[in-house]
């Protein structure tokens, strides 16, 4: 492979990493908002949050990406740049999976902890911030780590829309070289390395957070 083609691949890696970071941030925000809403005492809040997760977990990520790219512009007059369209579709979809992790983590905290907070006169917000989340979050890290790898694999889907991520630049290089095995092996290896690094970082984070609780 020539240096020009490598530059293409590097640009693809950069786009993939950016998309991963942005959609992970949006996904995390959605996860916590919707996940906490699912434990709310008002039924309507729980219902809406549950409806959100069912819809976004029920459809396919790729269908969502098509929807954001092709239906949002004529329907609402928004034309998003590909990076933000991809971020929106991936963040909302994977956030719905993350919401279930947050809900499960919160429900796994011993009920006596919540009762203790009530007995001490904490407001619901204080209970969530000071009692429930610090105990639940470390337990959420391993499933979130898996979800992050799923999200990384999901970022490849934007290449179908012509966004220049790693999978897309792999296709360009294949067309230039007419040599598929080599370039796709590289691309798969790069994804694997990123996934490996992600799981390592998440394991470090888990240890760090657990040390803080004990």
């Amino acid at each position, binding site marked *: 492979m020539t240096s020009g083609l490598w530059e293409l691949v590097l640009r693809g890696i950069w786009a993939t990493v950016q998309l991963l970071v942005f959609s992970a941030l949006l996904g995390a925000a959605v996860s916590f908002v919707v996940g906490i809403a699912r434990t709310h005492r008002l039924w309507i809040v729980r219902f809406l949050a549950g409806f959100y997760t*069912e*819809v976004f*977990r*029920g*459809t*396919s*990520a*790729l*269908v*969502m990406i*098509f*929807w954001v790219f*092709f*239906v949002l512009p*004529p*329907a*609402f007059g928004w034309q998003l740049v590909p990076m933000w369209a991809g971020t929106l579709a991936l963040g909302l979809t994977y956030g719905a999976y993350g919401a279930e992790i947050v809900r499960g983590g919160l429900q796994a905290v011993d009920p006596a902890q919540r009762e203790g907070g009530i007995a001490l006169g904490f407001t619901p917000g204080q209970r969530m911030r000071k009692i429930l989340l610090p105990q639940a979050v470390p337990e959420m890290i391993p499933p979130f780590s898996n979800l992050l*790898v799923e999200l*990384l*694999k*999901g*970022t*490849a*889907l934007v*290449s*179908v829309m012509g966004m220049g991520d790693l*999978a897309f630049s*792999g*296709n360009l290089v*294949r067309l230039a070289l007419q040599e*598929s*095995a080599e370039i*796709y*092996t590289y*691309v*798969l290896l790069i*994804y*694997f390395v990123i*996934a*490996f690094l992600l799981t390592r970082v998440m394991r470090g984070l888990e240890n760090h957070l657990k040390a803080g609780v004990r």
Partner: protein
Amino acid sequence: MNWDWNAVRDFMPLFWDGLLVTLQALVLGSLISFTLGLVWALLMRTPTRWVQWPVGIVTEFVRDTPLLVQLFFLFYVLPEWGLTLSAMATGVVAIGLHYSTYTMQVYRAGIEAVPVGQWEAATALNLPKARTWRAVILPQAVRRVVPALGNYVISMLKDTPMLMAITVLEMLGRARLFSQEHFQFTEPLTVIGVAFIVISYLASVLMRTLERRLVR
């Protein structure tokens, strides 16, 4: 937002064709992943490291890399290696292979959940190894893994639209075809979005019933 029911009506014949292709891919992909996953799980239990290591590394690699790129890999590389499959066959193989690395972990957990006493009893009865697996361990393990396998069937369903990228005309492929011809995107894409929600909901209801039956 303007919604055109005529577009929905015109899209429906294409939609049914696409649904059929999606379901075919799902059934075949599931069968491959169920079988191959069990093979991986059994290979991981062989006492030889020389089998465990490569199987462990390969399945980890397949699990942690995007299915879409694996689809491209098989679609473009297999012909170079002199093996030309149809796009549909390539897609089914890729999905089955990808998900076999997930079902493998399900089987492994299921096998490990069989109480040790069952193994000991089989040894006490002097059952041969193959018979122990066939008559004692697997029937108990498989019963435990059905719900988890069902979850992966639903995940597989939601990954079938990727087949569009290698020219298979499943639901999303037909929707794209339709929208390119008529320049109407909203209706076909919404129809298949709703179809996915309905199918995965029905599938999860089916799984819950099956789970209750098996637990009984």
